[in-house]
């Protein structure tokens, strides 16, 4: 029983280079994630972006890039629930998000692992879990609609 990590795998019917571009170019990443992100994913780089969902534009996410291995691996750290305005999250632990790419017969297999939840302050975890349930679901609907048009 792991309470520390989330792992997801999906097969994308697109070449690895295409998937890599969607992950590693900040603008493209932001387009499907729902984040106005600028800059390059380079090791050590810090990217800040505002959420683009109506009603959530006041929220920003900060990403600190760790590893960039073209068409193979991209990893970054972030504060998974940096959602309360006016709170300084700089001193709090982050979670690590890792994207791994592999060729499969009909496209590209992408694995995402987010780990380090045990390090997140408990009170925030508890609040965030609740926030996620309500805020994100709404946000995702908007994004799905946007992408589909």
């Amino acid at each position, binding site marked *: 029983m792991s309470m520390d990590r989330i792992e*997801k795998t999906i097969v994308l*019917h697109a070449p690895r280079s295409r998937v890599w571009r969607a992950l590693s170019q900040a603008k493209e990443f932001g387009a*499907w994630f729902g984040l106005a992100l600028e800059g390059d994913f380079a090791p050590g780089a810090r990217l800040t972006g505002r959420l683009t969902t109506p009603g959530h534009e006041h929220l920003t996410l900060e990403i600190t890039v760790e590893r960039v291995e073209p068409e193979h691996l991209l990893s970054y750290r972030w504060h*998974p629930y940096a959602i309360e305005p006016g709170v300084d999250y700089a001193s709090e632990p982050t979670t690590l998000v890792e994207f791994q790419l592999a060729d499969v017969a009909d496209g590209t297999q992408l694995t995402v692992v987010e780990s380090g939840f045990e390090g997140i302050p408990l009170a925030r975890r508890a609040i965030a879990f609740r926030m996620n349930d309500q805020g994100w679901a709404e946000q*995702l609907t908007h994004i799905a609609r946007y992408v589909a048009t």
Partner: protein
Amino acid sequence: MSRRSSGTRDPADAAPLFAALGDATRLALLDRLGAGGPQSITRLTAGSSVTRQAITKHLHILADAGLVHDSRRGRERIWTLDTKRLDEARRSLDQIAQQWDAALGRLKMFVEDEQESAPTTDSDALQRERNQP
């Protein structure tokens, strides 16, 4: 965001739950109770390097979080796993997992739509993609 839907616990309720789960010995105890069913401290301590006293302390922390409960059987206390609270904890993590599902679904649309709408054949598009620096 202050909506309080039915079935949503107050955050203050969840904090001790995660505190209780954030310890290797306690997670091991939950595993043993899950795999071996209700059992006594004597059995839970068997084969462990942790003292009976420490195990007792951990069990009480788990009990305070609503993860286990004890009952008296003869001269012994029998500890039982309460799966309801564990399910709640797992559900919390599941919510984040669902966000990833949704995000990956959008990524899938994002990269696959382009393939379908490309004017060239699939293999041409594939070739062109591969040739990019």
